[in-house]
């Protein structure tokens, strides 16, 4: 199945602040659901739609993103003619400043593909979605650009792209980050546009010296262009702040939610790590409503939590309502409630940490507490 479209993923969103979670890495590289990262969902959605050429625009902190995506082989994107491109900015060799704007690298990527359409995705949401309906609708309606939206209420206190539509579902007004617009139609950062029009817009950006290439920036053309909106009514997590990240993680404990997010018809691919299976020890305590991953060693008690790969829960430790990132270690007797523990961090023997529902405590990467 070949789809006449390429993908473009914006790895960062400077409006999204996850504190210690995205400080050391691009938003797209933030871990999610035990063994995945946010970008896995976007990449898999594109791949499952038959897209075989995907560029990821990464401005900064792309080391972990680069390590994660590798050659693209886990998404079957290690191809001769197409495949996966990481698009960092160009640096001017003389001034040592970025060459003009982000746009030149993107232009080079878009120009060298021969697909007629480009799917552009942000990295501040997680979903397992079909992209074909949007493309089909786009072709049929003859719109200049087509964008998905969801009726998921006011998703965040900080970030929103509220849409007001005309009778043809074309955007007639865009309200950005407005608090009062609850329950309206909100775009979430997936759109499709013809390669040709995208190139024209990018060149205009270059000419005007506009630095920021973003979904909002594209949608703001609604007054000049016909931008059609299509409702997406499937499962959707918005990752806009620590609270929404934590709440989304907890929703994964619901089997129904997992069944939809990990529909075997449209697998979510990720980097394979070859960790040993998870071992639950003979002396383990209660183990209830827990998502666990390979490489974990569980000797204590865990409830209502998500464990990433390689977590160690010591004897008599108690972990409740937590998200533990890769290789986090909860030592003997420690007690954690409503905590997000960063990668490689250690909670010392007997340590006690507690956040509150709606305001989890966050332990940074590589910390010892």
């Amino acid at each position, binding site marked *: 199945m070949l789809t006449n479209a390429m993908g473009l993923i914006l790895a960062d969103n400077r409006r999204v602040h996850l504190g210690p979670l995205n400080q050391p890495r691009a938003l797209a590289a933030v871990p999610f659901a035990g*063994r995945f990262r946010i970008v896995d969902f976007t990449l898999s959605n594109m791949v499952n739609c038959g897209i075989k050429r995907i560029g990821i625009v990464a401005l900064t902190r792309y080391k972990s993103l680069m390590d994660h995506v590798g050659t693209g082989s886990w998404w079957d994107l290690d191809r001769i003619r197409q495949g996966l491109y990481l698009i960092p900015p160009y640096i001017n060799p003389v001034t040592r400043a970025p060459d003009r704007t982000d746009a030149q690298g993107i232009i080079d990527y878009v120009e060298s593909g021969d697909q007629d359409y480009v799917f552009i995705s942000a990295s501040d949401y997680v979903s397992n979605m079909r992209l074909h309906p949007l493309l089909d609708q786009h072709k049929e309606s003859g719109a200049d650009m087509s964008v998905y939206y969801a009726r998921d209420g006011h998703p965040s206190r900080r970030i929103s792209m509220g849409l007001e539509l005309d009778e043809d579902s074309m955007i007639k007004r865009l309200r950005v980050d407005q608090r009062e617009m609850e329950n309206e139609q909100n775009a979430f950062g997936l759109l499709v546009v013809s390669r040709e029009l995208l190139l024209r817009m990018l060149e205009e950006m270059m000419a005007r010296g506009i630095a920021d290439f973003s979904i909002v920036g594209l949608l703001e053309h609604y007054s000049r262009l016909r931008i059609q909106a299509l409702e997406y009514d499937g499962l959707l997590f918005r990752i806009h702040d620590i609270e929404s990240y934590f709440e989304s993680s907890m929703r994964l404990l619901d089997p129904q939610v997992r069944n939809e997010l990990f529909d075997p018809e449209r697998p979510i691919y990720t980097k394979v790590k070859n960790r040993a299976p998870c*071992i639950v020890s003979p002396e383990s305590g209660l183990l209830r409503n827990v998502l666990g991953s390979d490489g974990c060693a569980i000797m204590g008690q865990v409830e209502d939590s998500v464990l990433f790969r390689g977590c160690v829960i010591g004897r008599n430790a108690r972990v409740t309502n937590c998200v533990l990132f890769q290789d986090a270690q909860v030592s003997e007797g420690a007690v954690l409630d409503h905590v997000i523990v960063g990668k490689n961090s250690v909670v010392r023997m007997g340590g006690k940490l507690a956040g509150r529902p709606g305001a989890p405590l966050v332990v940074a990467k590589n910390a010892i507490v």
Partner: protein
Amino acid sequence: MAKQETIAMILAGGQGSRLGVLTDFVAKPAVPFGSRYRIIDFPLSNCMNSGIETVGVLTQYQPLELNSYIGNGHPWDLDRNSGGTFILPPYLSLEGNDWYKGTANAIYQNIPFIDGYDPRFVLILSGDHIYKMDYAKMVAAHIEKEAEATIAVIEVPWSEASRFGIMNVDGEGRVTEFEEKPAEPKSNLASMGVYCFSWEVLRRELIEDERNPKSENDFGGDVIPGLIAKGRQVYTYHFNGYWKDVGTVSSLWESNMDLLINSDQIDLRDMSWPIFSKNPQRPSHYFGPDSIVKNTAVTDGAELYGEVYNSVIGYNVLIEKGAVVRDSIIMPGVHIGEGAVLDRCIVGMNTVIESGVRAEPDAEGGRDDFLSPLCQDDITVIAPGLIIREGLAITGNSMIGPAHAKSHPDAVAECPSLLRREMELC
């Protein structure tokens, strides 16, 4: 670059008939092991970790699943431009060759393949051993001793030595005698079935062996004893670590259990020597609100709502509420219904155990129609791709296979085959 210093040949052609219904439709090396592996992951990963990048896998019996599993070799990083993994089945030539007659004949028939890489050393490995071994060190020892053949050996308890092929050596480690299952062993050094040969020597020996009408063309039975008898430079290489041949139901069960009991021996958590595998991409495993899980290995996609003790659970296994699984090996994709009880069972891939089934050593009112001489130690084996009907009770030492779907249609059915294949191949 075609030339490779060392290449490995993995013998993966045998039917593995002592595993009974587990190998009806797959070669033994493709049998699942240890929650998320197949047996062949161990030699393949050892090759990769040892820096050996050309691996021939000699197949003959039911190679399709193995072939699909190995695919392009990518999960083991063995998708190399020159080299990588090659499935090597028997083939026709001008001389009209035939099926592989024995392990040595299998290598003999592939001399042109090996010649193509012009190697100095060829490792002969088995596709059905569980161990982590640095073959590079063995090759280094082979070079240092100026050996023509080097045989990896492991010390076994003297009491068990008579069950193995035993190497008698001189003070330098040079093999003076090889005894297959000696009644009165003179040493406790058992051959692991892992050989390093100088290719020039092995090549000559294979051609000679092929010409000998009395030979059964077997490494252990003919080639190695022949080399020793001729006084060639045959040395042992001592391996200190976990090693198990998983050729029988009991040894397969034990070796899986070793992951729980002796997890420090075959240390799968040691990331400096990872064991690679190829599995479908599934979400993390899930422990349900009422699950009780103790001393158990579990991996991606498994969902445990019941009780699980001392067991090895594969990916995509679903254990429903009220089910009890004890001392068992549940291979990937198995579905265990509500209230089913499994004790000392090995359940093959994608089999469905309907609710209320009891498979226990002394199941009350249990049927003993399925007893098999291949099963001992009260271990029961259930083939992949079956449906075990609601409420069936069976005693220990049973082996249930597709044939029983015809003989005992009340108790056993086959899963629809299309669905089955689809799931197996991920």
